[in-house]
């Protein structure tokens, strides 16, 4: 393929206009000894037909499962057809960040609406235009809390997604913060006693997820109280965003920041990305939060319009003094989330309930099998942890039938031997579950 429209004649004319005899002259600033003639070791160019057939072959080397019982930070939800039809509009997906507001009202308004929906959904007062993913959103909250408080200790629940904890640790290491993990109690929730013990006046932020990585709903209100008592801020995440259809959001329970992964809202699994980081906050943090913000304003004729606003927080104005270095975010994923939430509307509640039904059915059916037991008694949304005699074998058996089983927690929690983290969304039918039980019987 060749996407340059230049004909030989065009090139000749343009060279003449510039006053050069050959293209190579344009590269004369590059010291000759470094100049190459050709990139080595790249396969030959392909025609479009060959490209598509090569890519189909590659995609074909992946094996799509019949269905999957793993969530663990990435959730298989039904994406209503409208979402793709909107994100597929060329005016949206071939645009850059809306620096020029007058010809970018489309994405600006859509993001403003997204911000509003996310704020309402998370029980906060505002949300930014998106971050890279849930993990980096949480890490950015850490940096912000530390900067605002001048403190440098970070408390994170061990029940937070293992990869999120890793990202938080990386960002914290880079900034010289100390990260302290708080274990989970037997219930599966954070161990509040330990939390309180570890909380001191050096703590900038407490980080939890609810539902947490085990699917367990945390008592966010109590955690918030504990944190605030010591002058620490609470950044609360969540795993599956659809849980917000029924769960009281952390923002309403005292969290200062709600951060999490928005993939569940209309974004495909995509082998882990692109996803979108949700970053929502109380109003008082508005002038400090990272990321882009769209604000409403008026034009010269008093007509409502939207612009990128409060840009003095951002790197292109403040450079090294900026709140964060983020520039491009995940706008199209945020657009998808906005369309998804507008499509579901109040049905998000019914969807969340359906997730609970499926999950309870799967859980109860598995518990009826011999050798299976519940690990955590605390309430769950659409994920739960069970112990069995041989977790690896269970997954192998399921795999044979084209089913992705549960997530083996032992990898990240050596103490949780032979436990599996299962997830059942609306994509799992009763028939699917009954088949699983049949296989594992």
């Amino acid at each position: 393929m060749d996407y340059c429209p230049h004909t030989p004649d065009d090139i000749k004319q343009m060279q003449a206009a510039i006053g050069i005899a050959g293209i190579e002259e344009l590269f004369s600033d590059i010291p000759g000894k470094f100049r190459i003639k050709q990139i080595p070791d790249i396969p030959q160019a392909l025609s479009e037909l060959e490209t598509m057939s090569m890519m189909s072959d590659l995609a074909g080397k992946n094996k799509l499962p019949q269905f999957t019982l793993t969530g663990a930070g990435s959730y298989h939800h039904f994406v209503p057809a409208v979402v793709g039809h909107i994100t597929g509009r060329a005016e949206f997906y071939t645009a850059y960040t809306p620096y020029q507001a007058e010809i970018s009202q489309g994405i600006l308004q859509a993001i403003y609406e997204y911000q509003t929906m996310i704020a309402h959904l998370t029980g906060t007062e505002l949300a930014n235009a998106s971050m890279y993913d849930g993990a980096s959103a949480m890490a950015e909250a850490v940096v912000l809390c530390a900067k605002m408080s001048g403190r440098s200790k970070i408390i994170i629940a061990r029940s937070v997604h293992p990869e999120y904890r890793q990202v938080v640790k990386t960002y914290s290491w880079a900034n010289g913060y100390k990260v302290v993990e708080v274990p989970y109690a037997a219930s599966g929730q954070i161990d509040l006693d330990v939390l309180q013990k570890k909380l001191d006046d050096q703590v900038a932020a407490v980080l939890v997820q609810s539902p947490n990585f085990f699917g367990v709903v945390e008592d966010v209100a109590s955690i918030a109280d504990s944190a605030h008592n010591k002058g620490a801020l609470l950044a609360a995440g969540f795993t599956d965003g659809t849980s917000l259809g029924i769960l009281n959001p952390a923002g309403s329970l005292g969290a200062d920041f709600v951060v999490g992964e928005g993939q569940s809202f209309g974004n495909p699994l995509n082998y882990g990305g692109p996803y979108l980081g949700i970053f929502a906050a109380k109003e008082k943090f508005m002038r400090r939060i990272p990321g882009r913000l769209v604000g409403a304003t008026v034009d010269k004729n008093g007509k409502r319009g939207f612009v990128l606003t409060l840009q003095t927080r951002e790197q292109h104005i403040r450079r090294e003094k900026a709140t964060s270095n983020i520039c491009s975010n995940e706008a199209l994923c945020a657009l998808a989330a906005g369309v998804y939430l507008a499509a579901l509307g109040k049905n998000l509640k019914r969807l969340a309930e359906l997730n609970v039904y499926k999950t309870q059915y799967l859980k109860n059916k598995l518990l009826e099998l011999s050798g299976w037991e519940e690990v955590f008694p605390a309430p769950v949304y659409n994920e739960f942890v069970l112990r069995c005699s041989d977790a690896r074998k269970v997954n192998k058996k399921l795999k044979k039938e084209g089913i992705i089983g549960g997530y083996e927690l032992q990898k990240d929690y050596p103490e949780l031997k032979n436990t599996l983290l299962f997830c059942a969304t609306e994509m799992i039918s009763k028939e699917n579950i009954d088949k699983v039980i049949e296989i594992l019987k």
Partner: protein
Amino acid sequence: MELIFEISKSGRSTADVPASDVPAVNIENTIGGKYLRNELDLPEVAEIDLIRHYTNLSRRNFGVDLGFYPLGSCTMKYNPKVNENAAALPGFTGLHPYIDERSAQGNLQLIYEMQKYLCAIFGMAEFTLQPAAGAHGELTGVMIIKKYFEKKKQKRRIVLIPDAAHGTNPASSALCGFEVMELRSNSEGGVDIEHLRSLMTEDVAALMLTNPNTLGLFERNIEKVAAIVHKKGGLLYGDGANANAFLGKVRPGDLGFDVIQLNLHKTFSTPHGGGGPGSGPVGVGKELVDFLPVPRVVKKDDKYKWSEKFPDTIGRVRSFYGNFNVVVKAYTYIRSLGAEGLKRATEMAVLNANYVKEKLKPYYNLPYGRICMHECVFSGSRQVAENGVHTTDIAKKLIDYGYHPPTIYFPLIVPEAIMIEPTETESKETLDTFCKAMIAIAKEAKENPEGVKSAPVTTPVTRLDEVLAARKPDVCCKR
């Protein structure tokens, strides 16, 4: 246009939810009343109204598919449709990140090969695809540098950054705990070598250099610059956002760069989505490979798998494996262009930029008269001085001519900067008509400055009150 909330009406919805095929349970009993929310304040709209709302919104947005988008530094080249179709294959979109590696061999192979191709193109030893955007890549790169010195037990506090650099460079360094020192540009738009010499101490971890820089100029003294930095034990970081200027012409690794981040959504044609998703791979030289984020794909006996067994890694900067589906598009692009195609892209990009530069230089101030690379930077200072017409005005007037404006007021070292990056996918005809418009605006600025200052008039809204937006922020609709 109305907000989605303003067309909401209780009882409507677009997406329905299937009836449950398993027994319903009592949610209050199952989860506990105190954990449940009382209200759920989301818009309620029928499918027809949702589709009309967002379709009409889209029509108030400008994309590359509508016309010329010479946004400097952003490389708004055309996004080939075959890339979109390839990335939409269910085999790519449907995989859970935790699926067993045997079921994901296609993805793993793609990632592995993509890294190899990037190594070949940029002359680096290894790449990671984990960072989600350019700035994320910068942060990752700077973290790698930090780790390198930590491992060497050297405490270096400083990162040097040229005054012309993109804001993300200092911001990324700061987010990694470094102190930023500004390096002056010389009169030619290159690194002030003397200044560099004076700043480059053993307290300096790295020089972050964009080459070609944000003036669109290639650093002629790059060899000297690299030597100065390396001599003091520092590392040379390359902001690869401008890589479209040199594919197949020169390799940063050969020039002495130790770390480089790319913007796939610029150089490799993945669409920018109105602000993302992007992808910001980071390449490193041999010395730094151990510090790359985990997990990394390893190949053994023709099978690919993920490995975390890299004890010196900086860790993770993102969950899972980065913006995989964006990488699919860039991979498709590289495979369809091949080595020849990538080189031609660069050649045409540079040809286009120089062509525009030549055509416009009689009408606008050109602060640096050299041959430029993939973009050229003008200054609107003449128009300000002579007619009181600012670069913003020129930009807004271009909208009325049907163009997306160039980048303006960046780089900061050029007053009233107008940064034009045509990219290689634009034809001579497009450039000619664009230049005509620019020339007409220069003329109108003289003859009727008010006409320029009142632009745009063809848009759904006229100029917006940004001051009001910042003074009384309304970032969330209160109903």
